[in-house]
């Protein structure tokens, strides 16, 4: 297991290398292996062959001497024999010595230029029945392959020819060969490494560049294509001169050759193009060049789409802004008449202008209630308009939640609460104080309590709480309404979303209340969410930090 793990780690190590390094390393390893193999083949194949050849060479020399010198041996003609021996010796550079012994082991002739070393005679004895033998003997001058060859006259031995061949000679050849081989291989290695390095750079540099650009693209930087730094030469067919393509690196300037948008020139049906235009070039250069071209082309396309998208986006923003302005204007204009109408309706209802019969009274009340709802809607739309146009004023100040926010809202809503028979349990302590815009908080509570009334059970319970959570307050508006399903939760705080499940049919809303609530809470750096048990209860929970961290700026930033 450990071995496996080690292996895995080694693999990881190899994986971590760059392609360039991998190529260089594998080339290097292959060449080193080749070098070692050839050195070994020299050592274990060529070298023994050379030695074998040497041993055979000794026998050949002996035979040659015997063939040419038999008569001189018989006659003991020392001068002629010496001539023969020296001629043989000088023909072979690695002959150490040649000598001839007569039948009683006396030296007839030898090639030494010093007194004959007698110890040589006994060094390579012939075993009985054998005519020749080759043996490696050690002499003070080094290892020598000594060949002994017996000459016969009829059946009686006449003389013995001994030839010594230096062992160091083939050894030197083998080592020199090995050395030069290693040198050649090292030369090739260095050359190959340099070439591989250059070649892998040719591959990896563009890929690296492309991957960098792709990375920039992936994080949304569409300006990255400029780093490809391609200068595309174009031919201005109109003015007949070469220019730098004004369009290629700029998405917002269309290439008249590519898009045929401007200055499109045709001859018959064929569009006139730059002969060198890189936009049109296909299958030029190697695979990497083609990849670069395609990539560049893709970048160009993305650039164009991007600029089109920006344009559309701007258009949409402008339209939205117009719509919001109109909404704000309309609702603002509607607010005053409706308020006046409400006051008039209330005056009538309170018999300020004389008594009303029962039917009239009911009608007036209906008018009053509808107007009230309309005013709510107008207020909501006005808030929305302010939010969208970022005109909602935000003026946080230290305030007391129960006294400054909740109680006024409850007082406002007292009539409807009473009418619906709801029971409000206000469990908020007097000492819940923090820094917030109390007008905005009132909007929240107004919306939430109004919701609780509208969607809650008749004669139900509304429970208001505020818990100190250290650095923040957690406030909740709980009621025992039907609540909502878990899957509808995400839609709850969206603009214009109305969850139409089991709502009383007469409840009208803009679907803006909770959206505005969320906006206000976030403006305070807080969170709002709902928890519900469908059919039993629902609770809206708001968390607002006690202190506005980083001040207004931070919040604005968060908001924007």
């Amino acid at each position: 297991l450990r071995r496996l793990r080690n292996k895995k780690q080694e693999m990881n190590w190899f994986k971590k290398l760059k392609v360039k390094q991998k190529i260089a390393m594998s080339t290097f390893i292959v060449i080193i292996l080749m070098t070692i193999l050839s050195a070994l083949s020299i050592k274990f194949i060529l070298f023994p062959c050379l030695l074998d050849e040497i041993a055979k060479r000794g026998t050949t020399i002996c035979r040659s001497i015997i063939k040419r010198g038999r008569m001189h041996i018989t006659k003991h003609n020392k001068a002629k024999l010496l001539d023969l021996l020296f001629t043989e010796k000088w023909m072979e550079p690695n002959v150490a010595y040649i000598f001839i012994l007569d039948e009683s082991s006396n030296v007839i002739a030898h090639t030494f230029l010093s007194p004959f070393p007698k110890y040589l005679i006994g060094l390579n004895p012939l075993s009985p029945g054998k005519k020749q033998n080759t043996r490696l003997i050690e002499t003070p001058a080094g290892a020598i392959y000594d060949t002994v060859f017996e000459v016969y006259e009829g059946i009686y031995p006449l003389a013995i020819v001994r030839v010594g061949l230096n062992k160091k000679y083939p050894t030197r050849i083998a080592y020199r060969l090995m050395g030069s081989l290693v040198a050649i291989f090292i030369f090739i290695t260095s050359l190959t490494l340099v070439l591989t390095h250059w070649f892998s750079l040719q591959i990896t540099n563009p890929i690296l560049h492309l991957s960098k650009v792709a990375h920039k693209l992936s994080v949304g930087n569409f300006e990255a294509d400029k780093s490809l730094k391609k200068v595309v030469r174009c031919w201005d067919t109109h003015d007949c001169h070469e220019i730098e393509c004004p369009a290629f690196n700029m998405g917002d300037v269309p290439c008249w050759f590519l898009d045929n948008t401007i200055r499109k020139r045709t001859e018959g049906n064929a569009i006139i193009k730059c002969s060198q235009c890189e936009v049109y070039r296909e299958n030029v250069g190697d695979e990497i060049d083609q990849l670069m071209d395609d990539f560049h082309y893709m970048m160009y396309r993305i650039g164009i789409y991007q600029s089109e998208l920006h344009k559309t986006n701007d258009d949409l923003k402008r339209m939205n802004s117009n719509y919001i302005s109109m909404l704000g204007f309309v609702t603002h204009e509607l607010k005053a008449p409706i308020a006046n109408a409400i006051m008039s309706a209330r005056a009538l209802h309170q018999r300020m202008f004389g008594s009303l019969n029962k039917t009239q009274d009911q009608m007036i009340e209906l008018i009053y209630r509808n107007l009230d709802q309309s005013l709510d809607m107008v207020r909501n739309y006005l808030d929305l308009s302010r939010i969208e146009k970022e005109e909602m004023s935000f003026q946080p100040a230290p305030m007391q939640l129960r006294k400054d926010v909740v109680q006024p809202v409850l007082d406002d809503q007292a009539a409807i609460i009473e009418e619906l028979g709801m029971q409000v349990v206000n469990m908020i302590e007097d000492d819940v104080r923090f820094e917030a815009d109390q007008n905005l908080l009132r909007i929240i509570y107004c919306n939430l309590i109004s919701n609780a009334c509208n969607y809650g059970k008749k004669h139900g319970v509304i429970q208001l709480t505020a818990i100190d959570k250290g650095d923040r307050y957690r406030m909740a508006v709980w009621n025992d309404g039907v609540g909502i399903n878990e899957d509808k939760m995400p839609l709850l705080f969206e603009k214009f979303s109305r969850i139409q499940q089991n709502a009383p049919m007469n409840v009208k809303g803009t679907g803006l209340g909770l959206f505005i609530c969320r906006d206000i809470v976030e403006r305070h750096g807080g969170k709002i969410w709902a928890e519900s048990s469908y059919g039993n209860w629902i609770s809206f929970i708001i968390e607002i930090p006690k202190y506005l961290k980083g001040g207004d700026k931070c919040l604005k930033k968060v908001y924007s």
Partner: protein
Amino acid sequence: LVPVCPGYHKMMMKLAKMIFICLFVSLVSTCSKPAEESILPPPTPGVMDKEIILGTSLALSGHASFLGTQTLCGALCYLNAVNDRGGIHGRKIRLISYDDGYDPPQCLANTQKLIAEDMVFGLFCYVGTPTSAKIIPIIKEAKIPLVGIFSGAQILRKPFIRYIINIRTSYYQEIAAVIMQFVQSMGIKKIAVFYQYDDYGFDGLAGTQIALERYGLEPVAAGSYQRGSLEIEAAFEKIMASKAEAVVMVGTANPCAKFIRLAALKDFYPIFHCVSFMGADQLANKLGKAGEGVIITQVVPSPAETLLLPAAAEYTRFLAHYYPDEKPNYVGFEGYINARVVVEGLRRAGRDLSREGLIDAFEGIDNLSLGIANPLSFSSTDHQGLKNIYFTQINEGRLILLTNIERMITH
């Protein structure tokens, strides 16, 4: 630009270093040649406390024996005189001489014996081209000095061998000088070569061809004979048929004398030229009247010039003292000059004698006056001591020095 995993550069640097070291080692191992080893005698053999042993192998018997004996007499008379005066640096010179009968294998055997058994310090006064050529590999292997060879063969001069000290001029130079006279001064174009069929003769033939090539000529005929034989008829017919006006003879005295006599018999009278190896005095004696006009180039001046040349006078005196039976001659005089050069070398090498030291001493000789009106010089790249050539002609059975070759007597 390229992000690299840490340690990669270090690794690459180490690799590069390793590669360089391997390269260096392998280059050194391929280029350097291990020193040649051979079974050699201990340093400076033949140098004893009171004695220096020199060896020589020359023809003391057979057809070339005149050259050998005269050279040996000339050399020994001077060596004896030196020994009688106390030797060199307290050492007397002993010369071991063996007869090779002008036979190369015998010379080889003698040389091996001198080196391996007699353990001589140096070799001296060899006679003959084929014999000397045979032992060149031994000289190189044993690194033993060989001084003063009675041969002008090119093989002893080029390629240059450190251990061979040549005193006399080469055959090439002798022949070139005589060819120049023939062609330039006398306008002779038809020149034939008569040569001994061995290294000596081939050397002379090549020398003639080279000398003639300078004038855009080549030998009109070339005839040869076997060493030691007198069968020259075929060569004679060939050369006579070519109607040569001059014949360059590269051989020994007997066959050449036979050739010249035969030519006189057949009414064929070209100018004969013999190289110095011929043994001029012997040839003159052998030819008698038939030898009139034969030109012989010499590498030493005449030993008869006892009044002009102090060396000739000394040679004559020493020879008369030590070998009263011998007469002064060119061959002996050359032996005497060789001995003088060897003694000068040994003297300069000093008491602490070695073979390499002797060669260095020779190479230090510059413009040494030997008393032959011809200074001797060696250098580390030139082991050719003397450069002069003397023309002699047989006149009334005697050799006379030609001071003006154009006054040459022609038949």
